Structure formats: C-alpha cells, structure tokens
C-alpha cells in the first residue's frame, strides 16, 4: 500500500514538474494547424511527467539539467564552428541561439524541394506538415516514454519543414550558432521525402547552452535520406536530440553523428520500418574527456519484411568522461528476413573513463539474422609498440589507433568528402588533446 502511494505521489510530482517546465517557457502563439499537435504533445507530456534519473531509461544519464525549468549556463567556445561543411555546394540555413537568421541564410528555395520555417509555416496551410508534425514523435512514445521529445513538440520555437520531391544533389545544411551563455532552445524539424526522392541534411554547431531538438523524418517508398551531424564543440553545452524516422518500402535512411565535447549529450534515435526491403544505418563517433557524458539511445522497430538495420557507435573517452549506449532492435511478428546489426564500442584511454552499454534484441519472427556486440577496451599495447618501433611518436601513434578504432563508424558516411571533413575534425581534436 505504502509503495503504491509513493508511486502515486511521484507521478503527481512529475506532472507538477512537467507543468512547471511548460510554464517556464513561452508558448509560441499559434492559432493554426500546429495548435492541435502541440496541444496533444502537451497533454502527452503532462501525462508522462518529466524524466527522472530513477527511470529505467535514464539509468545511466541524469536528465535533471535537461528537464529542469531553469535554464542552464554554458560558456561559448567555438569560433570555428561555421567552417565545417562550408566548402560544399549547399542550401545553407543559419540559426543563432535558436533564432532563424534570414540574412545569413540562403533563400528558402531549391529545385526538387519545398522548404519553410516552422515559425512562419504555422500560419500557412501546409497539409503535408500538418500530417507529420508531432506524429512520428507520438508514435515513438511507445513502448518507451520520451517526455523531452513531447516537450519539444509542444514548445518548439522554430525549425524547418522540408518536403523533398526530387533527387536533390545539393544538401540542406543547417548551422546552429550561439552567442548567448544561457540560451535555452527548442527546435523541431520535419522532413518528408516523397517517393523516389533523395536529400542530404547536414547539421552542425552548438545551438544553445541547452538544446532540445526533434527531427521527424518520413522517408517514403524508394526515397533516400542521408544525414550527417557534427554536434557543437562548446564544452559546457547540453543537448537532448531526438530523431524519429519512418521508413517506407525500399527506402534508405543513413545518419551519422559526430560529437566532440559538450558536457551532456543524449541522442535518441527511433526508427521504424513500415515498408519492406528498406535500409537504415545509424552511426556515431563520440570523443570526450573530463566532464563529458555522451549517451546514444536507439530504438529500431522492424515491422516489415527483408529490412536491414545497422548501428555502429564508437566512443573514445578519457579523464573521467562517460559513455552510454542503449540500443534495442525489436523485430515484430512477421518481420521475416530481418537483418539487424548493432555494434557499440568504447575505447577508454585511461582508467577514469567509463562506458555503460545496454544492448537489447527482442525478436518475434523466426527467420531473422540479428547480432549485437558491445565492447570496452583500451589501446592495444602490441599495436602501439609496433608503431613506436617505426619511429612514430607516442601522441601520433595513439591518435592513429584512435582513428582506426573510429573508422568503422566513419565508413558509414557514404560521401568521401564529407567523411574526410569529419575525420579532419576528429584529427584536430586528437592533436589538440594528445599533448598533455
């Protein structure tokens, strides 16, 4: 009896906290199509309450600073942030402290693509966005609650809506700048890739002292969505980033995330196969030291035949940095010929670093090939000695081995140029951090 009461009190408390959190932020004044999904998200959040470290899903990562109503402070850091992906022919969009900077951005138009700011589109009659906004997020609340994503749908200040109708070669590139040490930003993007269409989305930058993003991607039959993200290098920034994808028949979804620095990063990816013969690859490379926690939380649902999912997550940690991986592959009854692969590995460069992994498979079909592996290891001493014996310095040898460790994740990036930009950023970080 007592336990139940405590549970009830807790639930009540959480709802109160959620209400407080909602009240703390200005609700965008919308009287448009987005009002209904926003209200629904609000109701979802009030029902779930805010996440708490006692939640099973937040066992390894304390959500307090992400959930609390009070904003957090973070010193600004990275003056070079805009340099990545800049050489590419791209459609460039810039957000500064969560506010769209029209002057710094390219015109919102391109061949095979319709693009609009969420803040502006809300007053227009955009049918396709109406059907999607908050929809995939809501689907993704089962079987695990993701209150911060519901918070996002309810309160998002801005974002972009992208509808892709052709085979678009020119990537859409969003740069998130920040100048404010206490910016508290919620962005919500919706991408709809129509049948047979194709797009690449690039994202980079710190965006905010505290960032909450939600990216909903609907990849229709035969469509392809490629995504490369370099999260901001500001040391003290915090981010909860959500990605919800629904995949149609013979569609392709590939996402890669690079994370260096940042005191707290929780990247959630929720992918659902709804059409047969589709492919989803999701990969990440994370490097951090000191006060650094990086959490990849992935949920892949196979609800179609002959789909391939592949997860490759690598983390390099030292000086007390922590890594978390929670990855689940759910193969529903009838999702035959599923090919599921999941790899999560951490390279701990000293004894202070820590990696917690919770890989899970839940399979209800009989004709599937699923494998998962998670390892935690140190630098291979044999290999290190071999490199040193050829005159390679300790720092450089260590960096070579770290890059080698990350290679499998980076190889998930199809475009060689983009891959080498990511590698460059990694090398830069390594050479700056290997001196001490």
């Amino acid at each position: 009896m007592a336990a139940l009461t405590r549970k009830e009190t807790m639930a009540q408390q959480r709802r109160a906290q959620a209400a407080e959190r909602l009240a703390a932020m200005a609700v965008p004044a919308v009287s448009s199509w987005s009002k209904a999904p926003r209200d629904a998200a609000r109701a979802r959040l009030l029902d779930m309450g805010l996440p708490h470290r006692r939640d099973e899903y937040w066992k390894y990562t304390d959500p307090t600073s992400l959930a609390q109503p009070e904003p957090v402070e973070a010193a600004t850091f990275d003056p070079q942030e805009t340099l990545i992906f800049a050489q590419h022919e791209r459609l460039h969009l810039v957000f500064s402290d969560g506010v769209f900077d029209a002057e710094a951005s390219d015109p919102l138009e391109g061949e095979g693509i319709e693009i609009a700011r969420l803040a502006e589109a809300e007053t227009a009659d955009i049918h396709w966005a109406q059907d999607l906004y908050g929809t995939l997020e809501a689907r993704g609340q089962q079987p695990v609650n993701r209150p911060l994503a519901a918070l996002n749908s309810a309160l998002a200040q801005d974002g972009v809506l992208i509808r892709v109708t052709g085979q678009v070669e020119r990537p859409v590139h969003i740069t998130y700048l920040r100048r404010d040490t206490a910016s508290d930003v919620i962005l919500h993007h919706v991408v709809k890739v129509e049948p047979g269409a194709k797009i690449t989305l690039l994202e980079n930058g710190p965006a905010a002292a505290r960032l909450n993003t939600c990216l909903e991607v609907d990849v229709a039959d035969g469509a392809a969505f490629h995504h490369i993200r370099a999260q901001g290098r500001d040391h003290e920034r915090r981010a909860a980033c959500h990605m919800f994808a629904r995949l149609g028949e013979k569609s392709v979804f590939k996402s890669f995330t690079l994370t260096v620095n940042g005191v707290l990063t929780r990247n959630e990816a929720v992918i659902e196969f709804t059409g047969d013969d589709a492919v989803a690859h999701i990969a990440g490379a994370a490097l951090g030291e000191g006060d650094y926690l990086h959490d990849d939380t992935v949920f892949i649902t196979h609800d179609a035949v002959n789909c391939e999912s592949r997860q490759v997550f690598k983390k390099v940690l030292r000086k007390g940095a922590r890594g978390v991986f929670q990855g689940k592959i759910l193969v529903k009854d009838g999702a035959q010929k599923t090919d599921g692969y999941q790899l999560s590995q951490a390279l701990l460069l000293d004894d202070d670093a820590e990696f917690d992994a919770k890989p899970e498979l839940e399979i209800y079909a009989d004709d599937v090939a699923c494998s998962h592996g998670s390892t935690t290891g140190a630098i291979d001493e044999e290999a290190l000695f071999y490199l040193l014996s050829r005159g390679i310095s300790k720092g450089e040898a260590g960096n070579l081995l770290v890059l080698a460790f990350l290679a499998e994740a980076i190889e998930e990036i199809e475009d060689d140029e983009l891959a080498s930009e990511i590698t460059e950023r990694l090398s830069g970080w390594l050479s700056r951090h290997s001196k001490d």
Partner: protein
Amino acid sequence: MLEIKNLHVKLEEEDKQILKGVDLTVETGKVHAIMGPNGSGKSTLSYVLSGRDGYVVTEGSAELEGKDLLEMETEERASEGLFLAFQYPVEIPGVSNMTFLRTAVNSQRKARGEEEMSAGDFLKLVRERAKSLKIDADMLKRPVNMGFSGGEKKRNEILQMAMLEPKMCILDETDSGLDVDAMKLVAEGVNALRNEGRSFLVITHYQRLLNHIKPDVVHIMADGRIVKTGGPELALEVEENGYADILAEAV
C-alpha cells in the same frame, strides 16, 4: 655501430632472468647472424634493444653509435636508425599500410630535423620499393598486416625497412614461414640495402638464409648468452650437427 656489453635482462612481471650477460659488437657495414636454440633469448634481445615494455635491464649496456640506447624511448631509437623486423609482425585494423608507412617515414624525418617527404615523392618511392618485393597496390591499401599471409607479413617488414633506411637492422627470423621464392625476394631486398654505413643483425634458425645474405660473423646464443662466435662456417656446422657439440663445448 651496435655495442652490447654484459647485458642482463629479467622480466618485469616475474623474477625470471632471460638474458644473462650478452656481449656483442656489430661493426658498421657488417652483417652478423645469431643462431641458437628456441627460447635462448634471441627475440628478447631484439625487443630489449628496441625498448619494449615488460623487461628490466639489471646490468650491462647497449649503445648505438656511441649513444646509450637503453636511455631512449622506443620511437627515439627508431629515429636514431634502429630497426627491428618482427618475428611476429603485428596486425593493426583500421590503419592502412600506406598511412602507416608515410607516418613512420615523416615522423623519423621530423625527429631528425629533416623536411617531410612530399606525398608525391613518397608515393613514387613506396611503389618502386613495394614492386621489387612483389607487394601489390592492394596490400599497400589494406590495414597493416591484416589478412596478410605469413610470407606477406615478412615481406612487409622488409618494405618498412627499405622505406625507413635504418642504420642498424635487426631481422628476427624474417625467413621463417617463407617459401623458397619469397626467401630470395627478402634476401634480395636486404642485400639491396647493404652498404658500408649500414649494419645487420640477422636472427635465424637456418643456414639457408645465410646462403643468400652472406654474414661476416656468426654468433651462437644459448641460455641468454653468446656462447660462440665465428665465421660463416659456424652456421654450416650448426646445420650439420645441431647445437649439442657447441653447447657442450661452451660449458
């Protein structure tokens, strides 16, 4: 070139003496061979000379051109011109052979205060040297030693040696696992590098290699010491009679 005096080495982890007073001098421009039964300490000697962890020098010295080797870090020894062709070359997933070679060449140049080799010059040189060792472009692209056959690994060691142009080359059983043709290739690779300024210490079990790489001096190592030193005929003697007589004599 290389002067080892009364070198005593024990394991770090356990109180086990492996080298028990090795005396060995390799003159500049000469080829010395070391033969000796399994477990006599030949590889240990080569590891200690290149500075591998896990060993403790309890007595004695080792100098390369008058410089104290034992004081230096592994990578410094390499830049000073010491090279070890491993008995068991290490596989390194994720690092391409080409990157490995180029990083090594340029690291050594940097350490010596020389200019780095340009990408173009390097590529030209590596292709040329790889070709003479029958190492194809694919093997250069692949991760270091990954999936290489035993013989390919050994040839890859010689390629590294050819690229790094060391002064003091130690070859630890580079002939083991090689077929007759590969052995010839490796020997030719070594012979091409022989000159007045470069010395070799060739560790082998078989006289056969020494037919191709003609040594000036042959040493026999047993139980952590050099127990006998002679000319090339000593290798022939071992080939014919084994170690029994030599060991009996040494006691």
